[in-house]
């Protein structure tokens, strides 16, 4: 089923989600993947959502718009304000 879901859509949707919970809740890559499938399951099957989700995370990280963090598990957040001593 060729879906019309584009990588950009997925990237932006993920970014909005990360930004909206910044500081309040930490999202794991798995949480973002599940959120994407819930949001776009009508337009793409699970396999496509998973593939696009992975690429979207790669895009967000490589572009520096998001970073990984580690608190006893790996999370995705907005880059910290420049000071490091959080």
């Amino acid at each position, binding site marked *: 089923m060729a879906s019309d879901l584009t990588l950009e859509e997925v990237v932006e949707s993920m970014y909005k989600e990360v930004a909206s919970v910044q500081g309040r809740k930490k999202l794991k890559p798995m949480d973002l993947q599940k959120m994407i499938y819930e949001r776009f399951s009508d337009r793409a099957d699970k396999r496509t959502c998973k593939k696009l989700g992975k690429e979207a995370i790669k895009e967000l990280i490589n572009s520096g718009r998001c970073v990984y963090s*580690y608190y006893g598990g790996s999370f995705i957040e907005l880059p910290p304000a420049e000071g490091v001593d959080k």
Partner: protein
Amino acid sequence: MSDTPLLDELEKGPWPSFVKEIKMAAKNSAMSQDLLDLLEKSYRDKIGYWKHGGIVGVMGYGGGVIGRYVAIPEQYPNVRHFHTIRVNQPAGWYYSTDALRAICDMWDEHGSGLTNMHGSTGDLVLLGTTTEELEPIFDELIKLEFDIGGSGSDVRTPSCCLGKSRCEWACFDTMEVCHKITMQYQDELHRPAFPYKWKFKFSGCPNDCVAAIARADISFIGTWRDDIQQDDAAVAEYAKTLNILRDVVERCPSRCMEWNGDKLTIDNDNCVHCMHCINAMPKALAPGKDRGCSILMGAKAPIIEGAMLSSMMIPFVKIDEEEDYEAVCEIVEEIWDIWSDEGKNRERIGEFIERVGKSNFLEAIGLEPIPEMVAHPRDNPYIFFEQEED
């Protein structure tokens, strides 16, 4: 040089002294000098002074760097940051001196000059640098063709025993399989996407010299299916120095050997492939020729459900052959899918399997239940019966 009387005590004695190592590095690293003083303070106060790392890493990777910040940066400014970088080791921990020298030169320039050779998972650990140095270090590593290892909820750096490189008991090519798996799953290694960490370990035979059954979510342990190779003359030779009855035959877990004073007969159908008789007489016995590996799953450290050992999943597969290797990768990826979908936060695969029930897990990944998977069947009556719609 500062005053470190307690640590100096540990420069004495025959075992190599880590204090000498830090002092060596301190000669040309203020960071190592501060580390030395900080450690002396810990020895005086009997507590550590490190804070948990937050967000550190190289661009594009979600793992491989452990953030460390000293709790009292005012007194020890040079260890305000003391991050470690995990460098993915070559399979079997073999090095050429040029490669090692190049890494040392880079590390003297960009870090503390201290290493762990190696970390418990297997990485070459570069111990202590600042956030600013991370990118430059990674650039150098790219030139040296040494990528970064794993950390966090990802595939961690796989490791293996020296296998076919130097051991006659290797039942599969541990180093080649370890390298192939590491290369095949670089994305899963560098970009954490699992409920928690996942470790691969490969031991060439049941002696398990990389402790795969105790320290890996998925443990590959070599085994064989045909008869133990036996050189009777060599056995007779060992009989001169070794009490074969007491120390070999009576120690066989399945008592499947007979020794009448000059001939050793092994009932290979009942041998459980424990390696003991082979270990005891390396010139006389060897694993069979029809070799491969068993795959076990689920080992982990105690937190939070208690420690676990990996348990038998696939008794025998010829992992060196492409076809079986592909089939195993397929099963692994299917397991990752199910675990990612239904695993809880910080739930290792071993805990996941016990929570959902090993039978349900097997069904989900298309493996048949076989008696080899259990030490014994259930001894409680709480059997689950499928509810056919009557």
